């Protein structure tokens, strides 16, 4: 019974959290956004004391039920393991705790967090690791499915579905997600919850608490016939039958073992006062693989943007019809990266963001993508080649579970300066093509762009933009809609600390 309840709730949690990463329309987040916000590490980073306390109390009372129900990566591993074990009912065996590894990973993790390298530390954080997998691997499939429906909807003259663009936001992040998926997938396929009990820093922390949990799995030594059925069913490999002991720091309270026992020797019950010393076991298995691929991957990003295009040729006799080629926009080199409004400052972002990609998943304007620079690796950064930070949208601030992007409303958003526009004279269309333009000024939501004569002595000369940086909020409308291609004649430089105007 307990096992069934756990399975149902866990499955619901898993599906909805996954959908948070898939639903690009942002409708689900209004209802279930809290499911991301009760994740342990995000709650800690958001200084969400209530949630953290609640999770600690939950673990102290019930054991690591968090790992079995709330954590999407945990449930993901259960699903993989279930597929992996196939018809085999009893695939696992007990193994000793690898405490040295566990605690050293935790120490390194905490050190990185303290040192501000949250995004590197987040490589092993469970929720954000799952987020990256969902966003990079599952979301494209979901979106293609949607686009197929949109294709049919269009032909049926229905507006129920609309097409969305599937694009590779960052190759290094994609590779990290793929690698995480493979490593954790293989581990889960073969041995169940290996990751949770060796690497996962949240698992380790909760394990310390669950050691002393009020309710837990207990083996009745009297009744136990040492048949090993429960241990062979334990995906956490934490039931030590020869000693009739359960390693409660590793037990994820999945209840799978309970119904295995033919002799009523194993129970989930209140067991205060009785304590088992977990035998510590030194190991020296290097588990730190794959972290350095980061560097190699980031180089590849540079190559993806460039695309050769024929130079626009002025035709002597204009013929009717046809469409002019449009050269893809390229991202300018920004001295200071842009972080989304609500993130307050580059430092706040860097310290709080676990790079779960939830904001990247919901950004409807194709502005946010994972950063490829080392110090903010995989954390969101804004760029305006594909769209701009539209005035009516505050989606990223609504979904962020870690306090890296604080909740803001539309009015606040239009007053937060996340950067300022910079004009590049050499590319400006009135000067290069001798055509009237002003598309930047027309689309500036704060009226920060004035059009001034290009020739100071001739008020009738073609107008060029002048930016009032005091009014500019850095939304990128000007950069995105600038007709100069591939590089815009006006672009946004980020601000390290956001300001209110």
């Amino acid at each position, binding site marked *: 019974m307990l096992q069934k309840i756990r399975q149902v709730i866990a499955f619901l949690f898993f599906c909805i959290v996954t959908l948070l990463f898939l639903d690009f329309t942002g409708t689900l987040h209004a209802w279930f956004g809290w499911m991301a916000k009760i994740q342990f590490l995000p709650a800690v980073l958001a200084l969400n004391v209530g949630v953290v306390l609640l999770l600690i109390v939950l673990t102290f009372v019930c054991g690591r039920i968090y790992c079995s129900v709330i954590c999407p990566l945990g449930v993901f591993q259960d699903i993989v393991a279930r597929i992996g074990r196939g018809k085999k009912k009893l695939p696992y065996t007990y193994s000793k705790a690898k405490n040295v590894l566990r605690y050293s990973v935790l120490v390194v993790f905490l050190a990185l967090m303290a040192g501000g390298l949250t995004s590197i530390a987040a490589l092993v954080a469970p929720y954000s690791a799952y987020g990256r997998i969902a966003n990079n691997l599952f979301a494209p499939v979901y979106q293609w499915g949607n686009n197929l429906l949109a294709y049919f909807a269009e032909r049926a003259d229905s507006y129920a579905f*609309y*097409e969305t663009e599937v694009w590779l936001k960052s190759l290094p992040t994609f590779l990290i997600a793929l690698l995480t998926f493979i490593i954790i997938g293989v581990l889960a396929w073969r041995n169940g919850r290996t990751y949770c009990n060796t690497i996962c820093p949240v698992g380790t922390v909760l394990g310390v608490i669950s050691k002393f949990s009020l309710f837990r799995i207990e083996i009745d030594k009297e009744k136990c016939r040492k048949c090993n059925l429960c241990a062979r069913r334990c995906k956490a490999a934490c039931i030590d039958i020869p000693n009739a002991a359960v390693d409660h720091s590793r037990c994820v309270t999945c209840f799978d073992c309970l119904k295995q026992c033919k002799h009523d020797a194993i129970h989930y019950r209140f067991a205060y006062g009785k304590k088992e010393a977990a035998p510590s076991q030194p190991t020296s298995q290097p588990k730190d693989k794959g972290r350095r691929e980061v560097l190699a991957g980031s180089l590849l990003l540079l190559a993806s943007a460039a695309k050769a295009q024929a130079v626009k040729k002025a035709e002597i006799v204009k013929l009717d019809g046809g469409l002019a080629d*449009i050269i893809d926009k390229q991202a300018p080199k920004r001295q200071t990266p842009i972080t989304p409004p609500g993130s307050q400052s580059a430092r706040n972002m860097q310290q709080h963001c676990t790079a779960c990609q939830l904001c990247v998943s919901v950004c409807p304007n194709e502005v946010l993508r994972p950063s490829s620079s080392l110090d903010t690796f995989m954390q969101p950064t804004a760029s305006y080649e594909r769209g701009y930070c539209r005035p009516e949208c505050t989606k990223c601030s609504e979904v962020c579970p870690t306090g890296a992007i604080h909740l803001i409303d539309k009015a606040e958003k239009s007053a937060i300066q996340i950067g300022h526009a910079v004009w590049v004279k050499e590319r400006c269309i009135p000067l290069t093509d001798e055509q009237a333009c002003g598309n930047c000024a027309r689309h500036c939501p704060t009226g920060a762009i004035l059009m001034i004569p290009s020739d100071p002595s001739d008020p009738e000369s073609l107008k060029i933009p002048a930016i009032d940086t005091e009014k500019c909020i850095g939304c990128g409308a000007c950069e995105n809609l600038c007709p100069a291609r591939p590089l815009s004649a006006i672009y946004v430089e980020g601000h390290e600390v956001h300001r209110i105007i």
Partner: protein
Amino acid sequence: MNKQDNRMNRRDFLKIVGISTAGTAAALTGCSPKESAETSAQNPVPTGKMTYRNFPPSKDQVSILGYGCMRWPTLPAPEKGGNVIDQEEVNRLIDYAIEHGVNYFDTAPVYVQGWSETSTGIALKRHPREKYFIATKMSNFDLTDFKSSVEMYHDSMKKLQTDYIDYYLLHSLGNTGKRSFQNRFIDNGLLDYLVKEREAGRIRHLGWSFHGSKEEFDKILAYHEQVHWDFIQIQLNYSDWKHASGRNVNADYLYAEISKRNIPMVIMEPLQGGRLSKVPEHIVARLKTRNPENSVASWAFRFAGTPPMVLTVLSGMTYMEHLQDNIRTYSPLVPLTQEEQQFLLDTAELMLKYPTIPCNNCQYCMPCPYGIDIPGVLLHYNKCVNEGNMPQSKLDPNYAEARRTFLIGYDRSVPKLRQASHCIGCEQCNPHCPQYIDIPREMQRIDQYVEKLKQETL
């Protein structure tokens, strides 16, 4: 009903032409609900009943339905030589048209990215030259000097694979300045040259097509005394009869003035590029109630064909269904009664309440150097106007649905990078628009409306 239409269509079609699978596929494409003209399912497409017009001293018996070669079906990607037109389909359409009595084909050097003359020439070459009349034009808009213009004239003959042109037009007169009649034809001596070509028999009839102001019209018409215009091509339909858009002149005036001089007229834009078949629902109901068997478009064609001084009515038929529907309407033409004409003029008044933009999708403005799909944007806008998907306020009862339809439909009709928000207002398109639409202004107006929908600030 609709389904049955399509089936009948195809069956007729198979019976008459007896064609390949390619044909079937094309007919199916043509059946897309947006594009196909409705057809009356009952009667098959008649052969040998086409109405013909003749204006002595010319001996030409011209079919009242003329084929406009400005809207040929195009390929998804240009073929090897660069031709963007679906030649196979053009061959089929022209064969079918000729078989059903159409004998007037109107093209121009600038149509369909410059490929219309070539493709039309290829298709017509497969028929005896005396079976059809070719009309083409002097489109010297950019290079107005004598040499370049004459080159264009010879080029047309070469592309059309002919050594004479039946109907030659001074293309789209009515502009002022650099593109004026004066500059394009008088100052450079080109008109004298063309008159000589007529004397030599290489041009059988000389005329001009017109979009513009009354002053220019009167001035050019006055040249009749010296030049003797053999025909004039004007925009005439039941909407433009009394309500021409922009700087254009009402068709009733044009028709009256030309008739006074006894010059036959070729009619263009009888359907306003489809705007008179894509009409609001209750207009459809109004026309259908009057005559349930006939298509909405057939009313417009009967209106354009009824005036006695009309030589032929041009229709840019992209799809077989359009061609078939028009052949039905004109085989033979049943002229409108006075009462029916008034009924259509009243209909035009009703349609004025729908503030569509008078774009006929002629593509003269294209390509926009900054990549915008101008007709695409305007057509989407008009569609939403006609279908009532233009909420004026958040409080409108259908606001949410109409907003969604407008915005999603916009992205479907026009790729984001080709939408109105990218219009920089350079105005290079404006001189090309025969309807005198201030395109950048409309682009910016539509863009602002889209912004209001997106930001929900209506």
